[in-house]
């Protein structure tokens, strides 16, 4: 089963139209992995990231487990956002953005010279810190924007996709009667859940979230956390957060990013199961950080 899986996953950059079972696969939950040691969805090996001459991240080695929630924590400026932006090659959109090292998605190189970043981003979706719905589009069009922009448009399926993803993002009940209204007419928390639904509609393998709840009230935050609990049934989730309780509550694995001396690049200081990080971390800085003694 394991080998079958990897074989199926080994060509993640093919055109989805040519590979109809790619979408079905992610539709069904994957019971085979329950209780077993999970497989890696993404692996970074000695990954370093630069902004021009400035080295923001150095030698990151991490293995992100499939169908798990991985939380990334750490003091401000230590490169968490930079790291998640590397994972779907959004880092190179920044002027001067450059990556060294190796990054694998289900065993295949993400940064290879002939890998199309557009294909990577369809497999590795992203939710940003600030909600950013498309201002000219209705709620409905926002959700399916990724499908239309990506060139997939079987319009018969679209309304199903809209309902399913809005339910997954715990937004359906609030917007089902005003799908034709502008996405900008929603509250900040609703906009963020709309952005989550929009990301899910593309059916990515991995969902990256960079502080998705940092601008939201506790109720909206709760809704997003609830949504994530369901998301991991079908997706691999990586979430950056400054909220320790949130990381402890929702994640299975936690990575702690840290800069030892001013001016150094950020490093992945410790990475382990969340329970371990929050109860008995191996390194003193991690413990200080998660217990709120600095940072």
């Amino acid at each position, binding site marked *: 089963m394991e080998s079958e899986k990897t074989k199926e996953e080994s060509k993640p950059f093919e055109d989805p139209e040519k590979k109809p079972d790619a979408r079905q696969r992610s539709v069904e939950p994957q019971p085979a992995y329950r209780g077993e040691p999970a497989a890696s969805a993404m692996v970074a090996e000695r990954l370093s990231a630069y902004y021009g001459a400035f080295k923001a991240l150095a030698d990151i080695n991490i293995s992100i487990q499939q169908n798990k929630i991985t939380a990334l924590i750490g003091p401000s400026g230590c490169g968490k956002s930079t790291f998640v932006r590397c994972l779907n090659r959004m880092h190179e959109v920044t002027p001067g953005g450059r990556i060294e090292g190796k990054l694998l998605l289900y065993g295949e190189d993400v940064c290879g010279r002939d890998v199309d970043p557009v294909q990577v*981003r369809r497999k590795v979706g992203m939710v940003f810190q600030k909600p*950013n719905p*498309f*201002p*000219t589009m209705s709620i409905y069009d926002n959700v399916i924007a990724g499908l239309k922009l*990506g060139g997939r448009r079987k319009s018969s399926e679209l309304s199903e996709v809209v309902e399913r993803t809005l339910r997954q993002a715990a937004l359906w009940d609030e917007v089902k009667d005003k799908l034709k209204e502008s996405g900008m007419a929603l509250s900040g928390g609703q906009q963020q859940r709309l952005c989550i639904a929009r990301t899910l509609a*593309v059916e990515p393998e991995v969902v990256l979230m960079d502080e998705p709840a940092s601008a939201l009230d506790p109720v909206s935050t709760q809704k997003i956390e609830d949504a994530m609990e369901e998301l991991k049934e079908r997706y691999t989730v990586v979430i950056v957060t400054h909220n320790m309780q949130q990381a402890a509550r929702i994640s299975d694995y936690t990575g702690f990013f840290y800069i030892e001396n001013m001016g150094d690049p950020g490093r992945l200081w410790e990475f382990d199961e969340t329970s371990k990080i929050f109860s008995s971390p191996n390194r003193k800085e991690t413990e200080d950080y998660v217990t709120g003694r600095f940072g």
Partner: protein
Amino acid sequence: MSQLATTSARYRRRKLLDKAMTVMAYLCTLAAIVPLVLVLVYVAIKGLGAWSPQFFTGLPQLFGNGGGIYNAIIGTVIIVGLASLMGIPFGIMAGIYLAEYGNNHLGSLIRFTTDVMTGIPSIVVGIFAYGLLVVSMGGFNAFAGAFSLAILMVPIITRTTEEMIRLVPGSIREAALALGAPRWKTIVYVVVPTALGGIMTGILLSIARVAGETAPLILTILGSNFLNTRIFQGPVAALPLQIYDFSRSPYAGVIEAAWGASLVLVLMVLILSLAARLILARRGST
């Protein structure tokens, strides 16, 4: 005690200065608006007398009440429409290029060129079109006129399009890219629609600007007392040229027709400008 007194003296002086400056600002605003209002009112008073159904449906005459401006209205619509067909796509695409890909030497060069083009006297553009299109096509024609107006439109549209596209927040762009949209689709389906209100405003303002141009038209379409809807052949009438013609007449009735035609032209430009304002205001509020 004395401390307080000096402060309050200073305060009084500051307040006085504030008043004086406010009054100055009002006066300057007034000085800017008064000529505009005067022109509008004067043209309206003088021009309304010439308006009649025949004025809008007839052809011009050299005597009497000057006849009508039907051919001039049609001519202006054809020429401005044709100029828009040529200038708008060109200007928008150049603006998109400058905003999205223009951070290089070629971009700076194009930007510099458009800025220079904005400053070129329109008569020079007319001479250029004359040499290029009138001489080679064997006579005055509507296409040459539209071409010269398009040249005047392009820099305006290019620069407003560039500015408006630059105003689109980077977060919107990133959202589209992160969904796996190729760059060009991000631009066409997300960035440009978001900036569309501003782009439309630039387009309407550029049309308003060229609708009243006279100098390049003298050299390209010449003007005519007859209706000519052919694009590549023969002199064509246009409102600014007709106004010029009418106003040189010795007959009072014909002079009045010049005012009537002026009023039509002013209203056309005014409506376009107002529409541009409206679109921008509506877009800005959403």
